[in-house]
């Protein structure tokens, strides 16, 4: 069954889009990340213009994060103070990101930048996760009763000014750090159409040293507002948000998420992280191949401008 996407201006099989949404939802359920990092490249692979894929994916991220934010909020797993500080950076970052996106689109380099950023980011995170999960796996096998390391280590970053107390996260760190993290996630969110959870969550754990209980809820809070900002700005400046496409992805995600969380409950964490890192590396590899391979057609068309 084909459906016409009014903003992407092409028709596409409904089940392909629902399936993509379900795959992203499955990941969301399994790993607690949005799955946008997988859905956006796949949307581009099936022929959605990258600009529309990114902007519509941001719209989908809102739905994804609002439902998990609700759950986390009720459980009291949101550090609102940390969330708001992150959001300051996130709002500035996403606004700058959309401006950068518009500029890159106008000079015809947006597709290339999207692909390169995905390759760099996904391969870095994938490798780090793979190494980490392998290391944990080996350590556990050798020495199952070993005590866990301390909560967090102190680096140079803890000497920055503007220190703030984050009671819920049990942290006393410079506000500049979460603002900076939020900014980077905001830029990524605007250019790549991802919520950024798969960067934000490790950054919160390893860089800010937040306790894992509040990480998911707080990142959902930040992602929700940043995705809304990106959706609004993309719609207002580039007109690339396709709500029909977004709605189909959301519907697919509703089906996929519970399946993912049931799967996650059955598999041990190390295996889950290992699986996820392999998946991330596979997507990065595919994108890299696309960048390196001689294209069948070295030409493409920019936007049409109707004559007056």
């Amino acid at each position, binding site marked *: 069954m*084909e*459906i*016409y996407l*009014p*903003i992407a*201006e*092409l*028709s596409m099989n409904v089940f392909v889009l629902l399936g993509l949404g379900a795959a992203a939802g499955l990941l969301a359920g399994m790993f607690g990340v949005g799955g946008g990092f997988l859905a956006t490249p796949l949307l581009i692979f099936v022929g959605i213009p990258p600009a529309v894929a990114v902007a519509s994916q941001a*719209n*989908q991220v*809102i*739905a*994804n*994060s*609002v*439902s*998990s934010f*609700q*759950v986390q909020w009720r459980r009291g797993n949101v550090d609102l103070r940390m969330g708001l500080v992150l959001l300051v950076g996130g709002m500035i970052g996403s606004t700058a990101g959309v401006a950068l996106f518009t500029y890159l689109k106008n000079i*015809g*380099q947006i*597709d*290339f930048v999207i692909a*390169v950023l995905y390759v760099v980011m996904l391969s870095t995170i994938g490798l780090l996760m793979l190494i980490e999960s392998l290391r944990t796996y080996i350590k556990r096998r050798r020495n199952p009763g070993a005590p866990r390391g301390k909560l967090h280590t102190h680096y140079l970053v803890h000497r920055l000014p503007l220190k703030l107390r984050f009671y819920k996260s049990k942290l006393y760190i410079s506000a500049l750090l979460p603002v900076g993290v939020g900014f980077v996630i905001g830029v990524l969110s605007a250019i790549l159409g991802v919520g950024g959870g798969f960067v934000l969550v490790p950054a919160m754990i390893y860089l800010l040293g937040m306790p894992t209980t509040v990480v998911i809820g707080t990142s959902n809070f930040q992602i929700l507002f940043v995705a*809304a900002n990106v*959706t*609004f*700005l*993309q*719609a*207002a*400046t580039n*007109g690339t*948000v396709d*709500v*029909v496409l*977004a*709605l189909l992805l*959301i*519907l697919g*995600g*509703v089906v996929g*998420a*519970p399946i993912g969380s049931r799967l996650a409950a059955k598999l041990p964490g190390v295996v889950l992280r290992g699986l996820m890192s392999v998946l991330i590396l596979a997507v990065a590899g595919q994108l890299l191949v696309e*960048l*390196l*391979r*001689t*294209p069948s*057609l*070295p*030409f*493409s*068309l*920019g*936007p*049409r*401008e*109707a*004559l007056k």
Partner: protein
Amino acid sequence: MSRLIMVLAACCGLTATAFAQGPRIEAPAPAPLPGTGLGGSSVPGSPPSVPAESETPELIVDLSRARVSITSAFHGASILMFGMFDPPGEIVVVVAGPPARETVMRKERFLGLWLNTGRQSFLDVPAYYAIAASQPLQRLLARGAGGEILSLEDRLSTVKPDGSRDPAELAKFRAGLVDVKRLEGLYPAAVGQVTVQASRLFRVDLPFPSRLPEGVYDVRAYLLRDGNIVAAVSRPLPVGKVGFSAQLAGWASRDGALYGLGAIVMALFAGWLGGAIVRRL
């Protein structure tokens, strides 16, 4: 559809009279004159190059549909152009999409990666271009019909580049433009077949792909005799989104900020509803 049957019936009746009276039709009373309730109606904004239709037209055409409607279920369309002409002669039909400024970008290898390194804009590029003929086109055009009827290659060679560039380079960009458009199904490589019956009735199916730019298309039929154009009739064919798609796209382009807010509200509601449903399961 009923309109089509009516016209065909009228045409058949006409051929019967024609056979009875001999090859020449003298002021045929039942002739379905264009613009008399046949749907095609008058031709607003038709280019001045089209010869005015005389009182006893040698070429009469109509389209099976007055417009191509891009609805939510749109996945391409097929429009039938049919008509009648005074024999002898051959029919050529040219479909041209609305002209627009197009930018062609060329990828080159840079440090092992393929990225856009060059761009060239062309003014007045037809969004769509297809030709159908009742005989192989080369044979018809070789007889000197040329002039107004243009093959895709000829049509594009008249397209003006924006800015100046080395002619050889320009030719490469032009060829690239055709390749991309062909891949999208907007410049069909094959010449369509115009079927002629009883040597005076003709019909041709005009297929349109799903990735169809909006605008007013120009569907033009030519009657050729001994390599000369003796008659030409043009029918405008508006292509546009209708219904839900049209409203959404219109809203998005008219008031992007409000559309963005709407998209946010939609996603919030869908996410909340989805979450509520999943938790019940």
